[in-house]
């Protein structure tokens, strides 16, 4: 088999400029929007004209607190919880955080946040949704700098 397998763990997200501690799953949904055009000259055959697209991301993970040594490199679920209460818009990067690999980036807000903590001796879980500002999302390649 030729080609390069991209493992699930390689697809991640940066919230602001930082990775998210305890992150286990990310999801991306891009929904292009079209407008149906049907002019007289088209003789009854409508076409879909591209207008723009919406970008939404989902994140989920376990309740880990970042270490003091990770202050400049990571956010954790408690930071995100507070951010969700503020409605703050931050830069994001989605994709493979390896120099030269393809990513998308832009600005997004947390539009949903939830946590679950059971009674067992194991980590709790959290999940959230991000919605990108329309027009801010671009595709490029990742640069560590």
């Amino acid at each position, binding site marked *: 088999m030729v080609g390069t397998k991209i493992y699930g763990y390689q697809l*991640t997200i940066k919230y602001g400029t930082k*990775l998210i501690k305890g*992150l286990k799953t990310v999801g991306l949904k891009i929904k292009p929007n079209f407008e149906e055009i049907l002019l007289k000259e088209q003789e009854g055959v409508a076409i879909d004209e591209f207008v723009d697209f919406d970008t939404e991301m989902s994140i989920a*993970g*376990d309740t*880990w607190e970042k270490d003091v040594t990770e202050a400049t490199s990571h956010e954790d679920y408690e930071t995100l919880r507070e951010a969700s209460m503020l409605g703050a818009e931050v830069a994001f990067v989605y994709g493979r955080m390896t120099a030269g690999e393809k990513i998308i980036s832009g600005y997004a807000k947390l539009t949903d946040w939830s946590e679950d903590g059971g009674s*067992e001796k194991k980590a709790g879980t959290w999940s959230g949704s991000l919605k990108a500002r329309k027009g801010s999302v671009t595709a490029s390649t990742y640069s560590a700098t």
Partner: protein
Amino acid sequence: MISDAIQAVVGAIIPNTYQSIGDEKVTVPFCIHEETDTPDYLKEGLAGHSWSVEIGIVHSTSDAAEALAVSVIDAVIALANTTNCNTIFEDVSYEGSEPGFDQQAREYLKMLRFTIETKNR
């Protein structure tokens, strides 16, 4: 390895302790243990392991099997937050037990179940 740690602490209570499969001619009391690993992966890599541990104690009477079970439970729970056989233990939870009886051999079984979180294998 967690198996070595379980072997060490349970073997101190029941010398005839085996991993997964026992000696065919072993006499009671004896013990068999098995550990099943569920790795805990975060995006940044392996964050730890969650183990489902089963420890089966076999003895000639139900009371004797029960008495050994109590000692084994205490010993395994005591592994929490220690390092044993190079395995870094975090939480140890005793999940319960199931009794059993072999009519042919006239032996009583006490199957103990634990969930153990470790930093490494």
